[in-house]
Each structure stands twice: as structure tokens, then as C-alpha cells.
């Protein structure tokens, strides 16, 4: 299950409007969805934000991957729903669930449609040093590799008679040691060899570097960026200045 969940954040090469957008635009879009979901705390406006972000997911043809990550978090949704409906009200609990769905959707939207290299690009254009941006994009690049490696390790240990699902809670936690130790060691080894191969290719030798692809802000990028910045401004204004319209405050009867 845990491994499946990461699939929802793994870049898939596709040719859609969203995939072609500038990574900075996508960053703005995802952050806007995050921020306005944080500002709103009622069902209707949160649902509105959800519809917008879901539309984008459908345009990017990534609904299956998105659904996998939502499904992976189903336990968390259940906890939020139960805890909040006891602590506050069912309406609030549902609103919080939608908020979490929006968060996941925002992250999926960005990571499913942005190549790790473009991610680094976007960060650099935000004046983050190349080394840090590169490290960040490398980290996301290795998430699926790590997931695959974890699977192989689990299979190797199961072949030695390890039963992951056996025993009480403590035993199950202990069962993870034979998985985690090799995973950490393999990761460190890989990090060292990646570092060596980077250095042998003159990583960081000069301050200013050139790039294979130059980022270009097109018409769609301007449109989308303005639309989503508009969304944030609108959500802030309705929440803090004007007050919600009546429909926004509708709640469940219980």
C-alpha cells in the first residue's frame, strides 16, 4: 500500500496542456490550491477548489495515479473524519477531509506533470542555488527507485522465511529491521557513488552554468498564473474582508 501511494507522485511523461506548462506556472497553481484550501474551512468553497483542481488532474490525464494516492491515504481520511466529527461537527470533519484531498491533489498535480529536471529549473529561477535545487530534484527522482528497492529487499527477506505480517505490534515493528537496514545502506552506497560520478563530471566546477532547455513563459502560463493568483486573492478577500456569501456557509443538518 505504502509503495502504491508514491505512484501518485511519480512523474509520468504525457503530452497534455498541463504537462507543457512552465514548471513555475505549475508551482504557482499548486501553491494557490494549497493556500486557498488552507484559507477556506467550509464545505462548499473547499469543494469548489477541489472541482477546479480535479479538472486540472483530468486535463493532465492522471486521474488513475491521483486516485492511487487518495486510496493510499484512506486510513488517514477515516481518522480525520472520526476525530473531527467528535471534536467539532460532521460538517467540519467533511470540510477537513476535502481540505486534505485538495492538498494531495495539489501535490499530485505538480509532481505527476513536472519532470524532476524541470522542478530544479523552477527552483533555480526562484533564485535558489543550483546545488540545492539539484539535490531536491535528485531526491524526488529517487523516490520510485527507493520504492522498487524496498520491494526487492522485502522479497529477499521473505525468501529467508521472514513473515512481515506475523506477530503482535512490537514483533511487526521488529520485522521491519531486516528491511530498513539494507535499504539505508544501499541508499548511502548509491549516494556515495552518485556523488563520485557527479564530481568526475565536474559538478560545481563553474559558478554559472548553461542548460539544455530554457524555460519559456507562454500565453497559457500567463493565463493560468493570473487565474490561480486570482483564486488566492479571491479566497482571502471573501474570508477576511467581505465575508462568505450565504451558499458558502451551508452546513449539513446534523
Amino acid at each position: 500500500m505504502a509503495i502504491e501511494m508514491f505512484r501518485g507522485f511519480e512523474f509520468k511523461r504525457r503530452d497534455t496542456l498541463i504537462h507543457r506548462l512552465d514548471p513555475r506556472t505549475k508551482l504557482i497553481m499548486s501553491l494557490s490550491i494549497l493556500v486557498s484550501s488552507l484559507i477556506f474551512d467550509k464545505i462548499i468553497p473547499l469543494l469548489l477548489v477541489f472541482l477546479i483542481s480535479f479538472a486540472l488532474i483530468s486535463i493532465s490525464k492522471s486521474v488513475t495515479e491521483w486516485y492511487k494516492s487518495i486510496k493510499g491515504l484512506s486510513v488517514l481520511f477515516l481518522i480525520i473524519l472520526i476525530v473531527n466529527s467528535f471534536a467539532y461537527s460532521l460538517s467540519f470533519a467533511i470540510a477537513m477531509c476535502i481540505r486534505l484531498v485538495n492538498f494531495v491533489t495539489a501535490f499530485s498535480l505538480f509532481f505527476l506533470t513536472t519532470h524532476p529536471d524541470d522542478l530544479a529549473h523552477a527552483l533555480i529561477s526562484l533564485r535558489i542555488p543550483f546545488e540545492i535545487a539539484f539535490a531536491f530534484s535528485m531526491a524526488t527522482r529517487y523516490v520510485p527507485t527507493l520504492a522498487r528497492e524496498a520491494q526487492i529487499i522485502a522479497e529477499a527477506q521473505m525468501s529467508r522465511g521472514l513473515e512481515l505480517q506475523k506477530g503482535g505490534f512490537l514483533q511487526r515493528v521488529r520485522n521491519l529491521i531486516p528491511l530498513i537496514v539494507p535499504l539505508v545502506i544501499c541508499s548511502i552506497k548509491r549516494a556515495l557513488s552518485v556523488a563520485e560520478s557527479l564530481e568526475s563530471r565536474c559538478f560545481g566546477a563553474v559558478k554559472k552554468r548553461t542548460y539544455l532547455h530554457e524555460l519559456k513563459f507562454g500565453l497559457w502560463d500567463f493565463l493560468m498564473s493570473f487565474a490561480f493568483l486570482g483564486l488566492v486573492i479571491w479566497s482571502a478577500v471573501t474570508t477576511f474582508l467581505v465575508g462568505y456569501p450565504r451558499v458558502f456557509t451551508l452546513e449539513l443538518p446534523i
Partner: protein
Amino acid sequence: MIEVVDVWYRYPEGSVALRGVSLQIERGEFIAIMGENGAGKTTLIKHFNGLLKPQRGEVFVDGINTKESSIAELSKKVGVVFQNPDHQLFSSTVEEEIMFSLNNLNIDADEARRRMEWVLKLLDLERYRKRSPFSLSGGEKKRLALATILCMKPKVLVLDEPTMGQDFEQKMKLAELLQNLVRKGTTVVVVTHDVEFAAMYFPRVVLMARGRIIADGVPEDVLTNDEILRRASLIPPQATKIAWEVSRELEDFPRKIIRVKELYEAVISLVR
């Protein structure tokens, strides 16, 4: 011992790894499975101990359908040694590493101790018993990985690429060890890219390509069939290549030669 009946397997990512594979492995056989990367070799051997269950078709181990048994239960019968030992070593000493497998099978302390001593000696790891597995060399780690499986005394031993990164001497030692196990009744299945290794030691070779078995027989037939080798992207053993070259000049020179010794005998008999 192992019966694979028309097995199909497709990975969740969408690639079809096995397309109707059928294979019969008898007790005490010594088999090499060969083929290019992505031919489905590793996918096939993962079916032997239930790590993967066939989506279509059936796999029987010792008469038991793998679909009706757990991996832990099957791994008592079929021991699979994976390619990369780094994917399974985690203990602080070599001894503990071996004990981990034995404890998983709930084997009593005396017997476990005996088996550990046996396997340490067999794989020439006695002097490392208190060392950390991570401090061992690549070849030693591979031997330790084999030890952690061998100590469970499986009826079938399956090795994925055991010769990779091993020098010639280690390869010979490994082959001797495997031959000894076969003599004592263990069934041994080895996945390998190493044509010379397969030609030297194995009485039966199975060739795979694109999820299918394309040849299955004695190496003298399988590894000297030009067309089949090309389909599996394999190059024939060096002795075979020489025999082919010679047979182009001399018509009745034997073409089904795979070992240096046979080549030598053929040349000598020609000269005489």
C-alpha cells in the same frame, strides 16, 4: 519437483513478463536458465517460492499449488538467492546473519548451531564468523547470501546470477559446491548470463526470450543452435565459435562442441 504449467504474468506497470511458460523440473536436476535482460528469468524464479503467483496457469512445488501456500512455507522447500547480497544483509555479525534465517524457520538451538557450522565451513566463511557482513568483499558477501539460504536446507536451490562479479576461481568453487549439492539430491536452478559457465557445468539449459521458453535441452544442442542463440541474444561459447569457424573450412568437423576439452579432442583426432 517443480511443475510450471502455462504461466502468464504481467507486472502492474503493464509489461508482460511471462507469456505461457511451461517447465518441468525433476528432483536432483541441475539446470541453467539463460536469456537476455528482460526475458523473464527473474520473474519465473520468483514463481518458484511463491513471491509471485501466476495470473494465469499454475505452479506446483512438490505437488503443492503455490497459490494455496504461503511464501514462508514454500521457502522451506525452495530457497531463492537473489542477485545483490546488499539487499538482504543486515545483521551485525556473519553468524547472526545466518541465524536469522534459521530462527525464522523456528529450528531448535542445537540443530540451528549445527547447520550454521556446516554452512560456514561449506562456504569457507569460518574465519569471518564474528565480522560484520558489511566489511566483507563482494564475493564473500555473495557467499554469505548463499549461506543464509543454504542453511535452511531447501530441496530446491535457486540462484539468480551467482557468477556476476566473481573471479574464475570463485566460479569454479561455486560450480563444485553446486555439483556436490546436486549429488546429494538437491535440485539446483541457476539463472545466468555466463555462457561459458553454463556450457562447462550444466547438463540442462533452458533459454528464454520475451517471456517465453524458446529452447530446453542439453547444452550441446541448445548452445550450438545458431538461430535460437540469436533469438536469445546470446553468443555461443568460445569453443563452439572456433568449431564453427573450422567447420566452414573442413566440412565434417563437428559443430556441436561447447567445451575446450571436446574441441581439443576433435582437433587431435583430425590431426591423427
